[in-house]
């Protein structure tokens, strides 16, 4: 702010000094002698200046055309072409990028399908395996069941056979005793009791 104020004061001082110097020049200015009628006419035409202007302008035009405007036009055109090329290249790169994105999107959606398929397959495999295991387990269980059943049947058959044999032996034995001795009522009961207890003690198994 201080600098700006100083600048303004400096400029005003310079302007004041200029006017102070120019003032006397102005005041001293005075027309003299016979003048051409055009001297004070702002629309007067000075052929000297007109010819000189034409020469200066045409020389300037020629010099600039050759050394400035030509190279500048070429440079501007080249830069514009460069910018246009860059924009085109950027557009192409953009298109390529968009295509790549589309491809990746496609791949991504394909990968999702693949994952879904894999999961489905895994699920199917798991289901299959599960079914297989269950079937196998069921099969094993059936086999075990049948084996146990067979063992039970065998044991039952053996028990029945043994029971039959034991019953026959006891019947024979009882019949022998009946035959050998006359039994009273108490003896009879004691014999039956004895036979039953024997039968119980000689039962084949509890299973």
């Amino acid at each position, binding site marked *: 702010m201080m600098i700006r104020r100083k600048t303004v004061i400096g*400029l*005003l001082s310079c*302007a*004041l000094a*200029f*006017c*102070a*110097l*120019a*003032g*006397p*020049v*102005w*005041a*001293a*200015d*005075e*027309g*003299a002698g*016979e*003048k*051409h*009628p*055009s*001297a*004070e*006419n*702002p*629309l*007067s*035409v*000075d*052929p*000297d*200046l*007109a010819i*000189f*202007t*034409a020469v*200066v*302008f*045409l*020389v*300037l*035009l020629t*010099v*600039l*055309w050759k*050394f*400035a*405007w*030509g*190279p*500048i*036009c070429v*440079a*501007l055109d*080249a*830069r514009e072409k*460069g910018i246009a090329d860059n924009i085109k290249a950027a557009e192409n790169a953009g298109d390529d990028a968009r295509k790549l994105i589309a491809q990746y999107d496609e791949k991504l959606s394909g990968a999702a399908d693949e994952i879904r398929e894999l999961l489905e397959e895994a699920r199917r495999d798991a289901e299959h395996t599960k079914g297989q295991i269950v079937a196998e387990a069921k099969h094993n269980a059936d086999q075990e069941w049948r084996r146990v059943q067979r063992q039970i049947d065998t044991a039952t058959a053996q028990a029945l056979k043994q029971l039959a044999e034991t019953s026959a032996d006891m019947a024979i034995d009882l019949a022998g005793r009946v035959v050998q001795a006359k039994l009273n009522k108490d003896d009879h009961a004691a014999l039956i009791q004895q036979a039953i207890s024997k039968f119980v003690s000689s039962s084949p198994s509890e299973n």
Partner: protein
Amino acid sequence: MAKSGEKHDHGEHDDAAAEGHGAHDPFDAGHLIGHVKDATYFEVPRMLSGGTGKLVIPQIRNSLEPIATISVGFKPVDDMIEPFEGKITKFMVLEVVAATLVAFVFIRLAGQMKGGERPRGRVWNLLEALLVFIRDEVARPCIGEHEAKKFLPLIWTIFFFVLGCNLLGLVPWLGSPTGALATTGTLALITFLCVIGAGMAKMGPVGFWFAQVPSMELPLPLAIVLKPMIFAIEVMGLFIKHFVLAMRLLANMTAGHLVLAVLLAFIAASWQSMAVWGVAPASILGATAFSMLELFVAFLQAYIFAFLTALFIGMAVHPH
């Protein structure tokens, strides 16, 4: 070379005249115009010019006699045409300065741009912005994309030469060469010749003049009467609009400098009284503010001159 500037009779004054210090009216129209007009000397502070207040330009000729007097046989016009004297004037020097500056700046810019680098720095960007503005906003819309290329160097040169001449008028003790009808008229004449040349090159020497009449579906008897009249009006218009091109620039630059001269003349008028201490700062402030406007006008008028040049060329190569 002899210093014969004092001997020329237009817009300059004998040292003897200095004896009448303060004797004339600073607001005299002729006197004010004398300060704005071309001369064979630069007005400088007395302390820089050995007390004369003038820096006389060395002349080639040491003679009062005109080389030739141009007359068209019509006194009002003859009175406007100064004799051809082969003199060197302030505006000639300033035109050379403006042309040299423009050439220096743009040849240097062309060298910088040759490398194909991007613009660096304020000056380079500013100049390129101006060049591209003239090309994209003036030449191409007015002349057409394809044809603008051929006329762009002319329009660039006109714009920067006029701008340079206008801006020199804002430098103290110098002047604006575009404040002379000889300068603006010559530039307008060059534009006119380019317009005619461009039109004839495009449509042929006869076709260009025929193209001045707009195509109208008129009955034959009416066309025989009207078309020559329209042709005359259009051709007159062609001349008038180029004359106005010169007058517009001249009027703007001269008027601005006259206003500045009047503002500063207040200082001269009050020089011998104490009032100068009040008048001078007010005049300086007024002149400073008006110089800002002049700076804008300098650019605006250069733009208008270049724009109208492009427009006239465009009208010549694309009639109606």
